[in-house]
C-alpha cells in the first residue's frame, strides 16, 4: 500500500476516534450520581385548597340584550324562567293594515325537546333598550295591557312558527299619534316544562320578523304575500332563577349570571421558583346541571384585578384568563401563567373569578363543590415548581 495513503488513513482514524469519544455534554456524564442531587436545586409539587372565603354572587350587569338568542319558557325542576321583550319601531307608513303576524325561528330547547308551547303576550309599559334593560333592572312595572295568549305544539322538526298579532295594535304602532307609546311586547311563558330558545335580532340569520299585510288582492295562485317584513328594533330575554345558597356549592350560571370567587394562598412557594405547571381542578354535581351534564359548560377564569371591590362589583384582569370545559364531574384548567405571576410578584394575587363563558348568550348552570366540601371534591390548585440551587441565590 502507498505509504502516504497509509499515513493519511492512520491520521483520519485518530481524528475520528477523538471526535467520537469526546461528545460534548453527554447526558448523565460519569459521576452524575457521585454528588448529592439535592444540592442542585429542588423540584416539588403541592396541592393548595382555596381559602374558606370562596363564594358565589349574582352579576349586576347582565347584558342579555346582546345575545343572538331569545328564550321563553320555564323549567320548574330547576326554578328557571325566561321572558322576552321584542320591540318593533319605525314601521313603514302604511295606510291600512289588514293583518300582522310575528314569526319566530327556533334555535333549540332546554328541558325537553317537544311539548305544548304556551305563552301570554302583554304590551310593554315603558321605554327600554338592549343596553338599559337587564334581569336586574326588569320588574313587574314593565308588564302592561294583556294582548293575547297562544299555544303551539313544538318538536325538534319544527324550525319556526308564526303568531298573529291584533291588526289594531300594529296599526297603532304606525299611526303617528299613538306610535310614541309603542314599547313593544312582553312574552311570558305559561308552560313549565321546557324553554324554547329563538334567534334574536343579534343573530346573523333567522331573526324575528313582523309581517304586515295590507288590503291586497291574492295573486293568481291565491297566495297573499306580506306587504312589509320588519325586523325588531330591540329584543332581549330576561332570565330568572332561584338558587338556594349553600356553603358546600358554588353556582356558576349563564343567563342568570352567577359568578364564583376563590383565592389560593401560594405564599409557601419561594419567589425565585419557576412554575412548571399549575392547574385548577373543580368538581361539579352532575345531578344538578342545567340543561344537563352531557352538554359542555365552559367556565372562564379571570384574575381579580385589585382588592378594592365590594360584591357584586368585582374588577377583573381581562388580559389573562383560562377556561375549564366542564363535561364530567372533574375538570381542570391551566393556571401556570397566573401562578407564576403571583409567585414572582409580577402581579398581585387577588384571587380568581369564575364565570360562564356564555354568560350573556344562553341559559345554563353548573353546581361546583366549594372549599367546605369533602377534600376529594373541593377545588384544588396543583402546582409543580422548581427552585434553583441555593448557592446561585444570594439569600
Amino acid at each position, binding site marked *: 500500500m502507498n505509504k502516504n495513503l497509509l499515513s493519511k488513513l492512520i491520521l483520519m482514524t485518530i481524528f475520528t476516534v*477523538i471526535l467520537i469519544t*469526546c461528545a460534548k455534554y453527554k447526558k448523565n456524564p*460519569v459521576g452524575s450520581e457521585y454528588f448529592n442531587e439535592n444540592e442542585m436545586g429542588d423540584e*416539588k409539587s403541592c396541592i393548595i385548597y382555596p381559602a374558606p372565603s370562596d363564594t358565589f354572587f349574582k352579576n349586576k350587569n347582565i347584558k342579555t340584550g346582546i345575545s343572538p338568542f331569545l328564550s321563553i319558557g320555564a323549567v320548574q325542576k330547576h326554578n328557571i324562567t325566561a321572558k322576552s321583550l321584542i320591540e318593533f319601531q319605525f314601521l313603514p307608513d302604511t295606510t291600512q293594515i289588514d293583518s300582522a303576524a310575528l314569526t319566530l325561528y327556533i334555535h333549540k330547547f332546554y328541558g325537553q325537546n317537544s311539548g305544548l308551547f304556551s305563552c301570554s303576550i302583554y304590551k310593554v309599559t315603558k321605554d327600554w333598550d338592549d343596553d338599559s334593560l337587564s334581569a336586574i333592572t326588569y320588574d313587574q312595572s314593565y308588564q302592561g295591557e294583556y294582548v293575547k295568549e297562544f299555544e303551539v305544539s313544538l318538536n325538534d322538526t319544527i324550525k319556526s312558527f308564526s303568531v298573529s298579532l291584533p291588526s289594531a295594535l300594529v296599526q297603532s304602532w304606525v299611526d303617528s299619534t299613538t306610535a310614541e307609546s309603542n314599547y313593544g311586547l312582553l312574552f311570558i311563558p305559561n308552560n313549565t316544562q321546557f324553554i324554547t330558545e329563538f334567534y334574536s335580532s343579534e343573530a346573523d340569520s333567522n331573526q324575528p320578523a313582523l309581517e304586515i299585510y295590507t288590503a291586497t288582492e291574492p295573486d293568481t295562485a291565491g297566495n297573499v304575500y306580506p306587504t312589509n317584513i320588519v325586523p325588531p328594533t330591540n329584543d332581549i330575554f330576561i332570565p330568572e332563577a332561584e338558587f338556594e345558597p349553600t356553603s358546600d356549592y358554588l353556582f356558576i350560571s349563564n343567563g342568570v349570571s352567577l359568578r364564583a370567587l376563590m383565592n389560593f394562598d401560594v405564599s409557601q412557594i419561594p419567589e*425565585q421558583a419557576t412554575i412548571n*405547571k399549575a392547574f385548577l381542578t373543580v368538581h361539579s354535581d352532575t345531578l344538578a346541571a342545567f340543561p344537563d351534564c352531557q352538554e359542555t359548560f365552559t367556565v372562564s377564569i379571570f384574575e381579580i384585578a385589585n382588592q378594592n371591590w365590594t360584591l357584586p362589583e368585582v374588577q377583573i384582569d381581562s388580559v389573562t384568563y383560562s377556561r375549564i370545559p366542564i363535561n364530567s364531574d372533574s375538570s381542570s384548567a391551566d393556571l401556570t401563567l397566573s401562578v407564576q405571576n403571583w409567585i414572582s410578584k409580577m402581579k398581585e394575587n387577588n384571587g380568581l373569578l369564575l364565570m360562564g363563558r356564555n354568560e350573556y348568550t344562553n341559559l345554563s348552570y353548573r353546581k361546583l363543590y366549594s372549599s367546605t366540601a369533602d377534600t376529594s371534591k373541593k377545588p384544588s390548585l396543583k402546582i409543580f415548581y422548581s427552585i434553583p440551587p441555593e448557592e446561585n441565590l*444570594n439569600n
Partner: protein
Amino acid sequence: MKKTVLFFLISLFIYSQNHYCGSILSSRGLGMNFEHPNTRAMGMGEFAIADVDPYTISRINPASQLFHQISRISIYYFTMYNHYQDQFNGSANSQYSNFDGFSFFIPLHSNFGIASGLTPLTRMDYKISFDKSIGSYGYTKSIKGNGGLNSFDLSCHWTFKNFLSFGITGRYIFGNINTTWRINYDDNSFIQTKNFFSTKNHGFNYKAGVILKPFSSMTIGAVYSPKVTLDNKTTISYVFTDSTKEYNGSIQYPGSYGFGISYQIKKVGLIGIDYLIYNWNSLLINDHNPSYAHNTNKISIGFESAYSIQPTASYLKQIRYRLGYYHKPYLSLDPDGNEIYESCITFGLGLPIKRRIAEINIAFNYGKRGDLNKNGLSENIYRVSLSLSIGEKWFQRRF
C-alpha cells in the same frame, strides 16, 4: 504528507478549542484550580518556587527573574485529554485545548525588572444531569457550568548581589462564571425551567516572593498570596420573564503560600522540591463556606538534566530534559469526606533556538485523580503544555 499532517493539526486545533465535557469535579467551588506554572515547571512536576531559570519566566514566584539578562516573552498553549470512570461502570473521555496565557519580562536595571502576564486561575466546565420524576411526571434535571477566573499580573523584583531577590505581583483577578439550570419535563404541556446565572467577578490581590541563594548551586524560594475578596454581580435570567434580576455578592478567593529548594549538581542537572498550600478552607461564596472545600498541599519534585550552552555541541546535548512528579489532594472532598488525591508524573523538553535566544518548551503529564474504590470516581489525565519563550534585546540589564 506534510499537507496532510498540517491539515490534521489545524483540524484538531479548531475542533478542540471549545470542546470539553470536563470533570464533574469542576462543578465545585470556583472550578478546577487551573493556575499552571510555566511549561518548564510542568515538565518538572510543577516544581517552580525555587526555580531561577534565565530562559523562562516564572508565573509562581515574582522574585525568580533575577537571572534574566534580556527582555523575554512567553506564550503558552495547553491541551488535556481525560478519561473518567465511576463506580457505576460508567466511563467517558474529554478533550480540551486553549491558549494558556502569556508572560512578559523587561529587565530595567542590573537588580530590578518588571513583568506582566495573563494567567488562568480556575476553570469550570461541566454538565450534570439526573432523570427524576414527581408522581407519574418524568423530567430531566441538569446543571451546566462554564467559565472561570483569570489573573492579569504586573510584577517587579529587586535583587541584592545575586543572592537575595524580592518580588511582588499586583494581580487583577477577573472572570465570569455562568451556570444554566434546567428542568425539562417529558410532558410538553409543562413549562421547562431555564435559569441562567452569570456572575462577573473582579478584585485586586497581590503575591509576594523571595529567592535566597546561600551559595551558587543552591536556591531557596518562598511565595505568599493572601486571601482576597472579589466583588461580583450576578445576573439571573428566568424563562418566565424577559426581565432579569441582579444582586451583588462576593467571593473570598483563598490565599496560598509555599516554599521550595533546589540544588544544581554539576554535570548532572538541577533537582528541586516544592511545597505549596492553598487555603481552600477559607473559600466563601456569598459568605457561605462550602462544606466540601478543604486545604490542599501540593508536593512537587523535579529534575532537569545538565545541558550544553556551547553552540558547537550537538543539538541533543543542548536540549534540556526534564522529569518530575507531584502529589496533591483536590480542593473538594468526596461525599463521604474523603480526600481525592491527584498524582502525576511529568516529562519535558527544552528545545533551544538560535543559541537559546528562544526556546520551545514541551511538557507531557500523565496522572490520576481519585480512586474508584475510595472516592467512587477516578480520572486518568493526559496533559501537554507547549510554550514559546523568546528573548529580545529591547531592554538589557545595565550593570
